[in-house]
């Protein structure tokens, strides 16, 4: 009975996951197929699509731009969010409720809607914003915010903030010193896990990039979109390369979050 049940549940899990894997596996096979026309299986295999992709200057540039934007956004977000959470938790715990409402806003307002306002407000501003990577960093900060705020505030809740701060103060540390040398190292794993996950979804962001900047600063997703008319094999190799990075980032995030729990 127990065994029959086990294999039933295993079958359910395997079949759903199996179905979910079809697009990924198919894309992978397509990316290494020399040609795959109107047949169920491809004709032969080759690595030439990856070679073409990795030697394409435009791809490398777009990828570099995406990495630059993601890194800068995350640095900016940490700089902006960390002090806020510390101040909220250490000095004004009552503000936490207010912050929790505030960070829901990016969820409630789809990026397309935000873009409408952003385009009208900043298209003709004195400081050039629309069409530059800077506006993407600002908007990416807002979409990473709910996620990073929750993850970091969970880490804050799991340490004895006041005891640690009191101990550091007793030993003669100033508040900024205590924060940087005592609190921050304690949050490191939770913070890194949230950074890797944010990185992977920022790398996939398309709406803001397309509406606010477009080809003026071609990111990875925009490049991918612009390549839609080229060979399907080539775009598959592109999608798989992207997927590999997502895999790497998720793997790192899981490793760090497991470390944070133990």
């Amino acid at each position, binding site marked *: 009975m127990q065994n029959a*049940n*086990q294999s039933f*549940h*295993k079958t*359910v*899990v395997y079949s*759903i996951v199996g179905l*979910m894997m079809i*697009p*990924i596996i*198919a*894309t992978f096979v*397509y990316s290494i197929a020399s040609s795959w026309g109107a047949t*169920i*299986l491809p004709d032969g295999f080759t690595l030439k699509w990856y070679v073409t992709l990795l030697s394409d200057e435009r791809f490398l540039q777009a990828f570099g731009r995406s990495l630059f934007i993601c890194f800068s956004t995350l640095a*900016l977000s940490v700089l*902006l*969010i960390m*002090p*806020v959470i*510390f*101040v909220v938790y*250490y*000095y004004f715990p009552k503000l936490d409720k207010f912050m929790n409402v505030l960070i829901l*806003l990016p*969820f*409630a*307002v*789809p*990026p*397309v*809607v*935000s*873009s*409408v*306002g*952003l*385009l*009208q*407000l900043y298209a003709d501003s004195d400081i050039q914003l629309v069409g530059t990577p800077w*506006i993407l960093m*600002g908007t990416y900060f*807002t979409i990473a*915010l709910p996620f990073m705020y929750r993850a970091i505030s969970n880490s804050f809740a799991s340490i004895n903030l006041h005891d640690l701060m009191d101990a550091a103060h007793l030993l003669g540390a100033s508040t900024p010193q205590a924060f940087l040398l005592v609190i921050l190292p304690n949050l490191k794993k939770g913070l890194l896990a949230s950074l890797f*996950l944010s990185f*992977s979804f920022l790398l*996939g962001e*398309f*709406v803001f990039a*397309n*509406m606010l900047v477009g080809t003026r600063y071609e990111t990875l997703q925009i490049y*991918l979109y612009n390549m839609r008319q080229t060979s*399907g094999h080539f*775009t*598959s190799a592109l*999608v798989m390369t992207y*997927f590999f990075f997502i*895999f790497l980032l*998720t793997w790192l995030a*899981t490793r760090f979050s497991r470390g944070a729990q133990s």
Partner: protein
Amino acid sequence: MLSPVSKRQKRWKPLLWLIPFLVFFSVFQLAPMGWVLINSFIYDGDISFENYSEVFDSSFMLQGFSNSLWLSLWSAVIGLVIATVLVSSLRRVDSKIREAVIAFTNMTSNFTGVPIAFAFIIILGINGAVTLLLKKYGLIDDFNLYGQWGLLVIYIYFQIPLAVLLLYPAFDGLNDDWQSAAALLGAKTWQYWLNVALPVLSPALLGTFIILVANAIGAYATAYALTSGNYNIITIRIASLVSGDLFLEPNLAAAISVLVMAILAFITCINQWLVARSYHAKR
């Protein structure tokens, strides 16, 4: 000794750290939102409801709304059902498989937007491998990936990982002893699910459902990449009114945006009401 004034200053000084955060948040979140809200009521420089009545008078706009709602409701329902089945089975298999599957869903939850549209063109496009396979066995005559059914399949695909990740922790609230207890009292498995498990899980299920609906209504990249903006959903309408090649009407786009936010708020309110009536609230 500190004078009372400087003491008070000292108490409020940490709040200065909130300023940079609030500046960025205002510039990139609050200001655009405010612009949309205000300008949706401005038509030719005057305050009016003209933008809204234009939306309701246009069958093209209404079609966009109904397509968006159809896609998001069905993809949320089907995605939620599949995810519930997967998570409930997942808790009964050994931890190694479980961890691997959770890692896999974590990864696929970021597989959205443009890449997923391309992946589906390969398997379900006109000459896609799966399309050909299904045709060969006579299961389908033809499959149009670039219409509502194709989009529905893709939407369901990207809803499942999100639903799994949101539901997985909620199933911790389900005590295994309850199933044994129910079985001892003579309940069949489906009776246990209907009368014990689902009522306990209902707040989590409803909450997940809302997030899935919001996720689908706001989605833009997949449909845009798949149909080059030709399929009429509401986010594509909004985008084409502010960044298309002709007829830019930002105030009309603002009115549609406000309606989208109103729909989301309305669904959230219903959800809150249902959660308040559910099992957990009664205790």
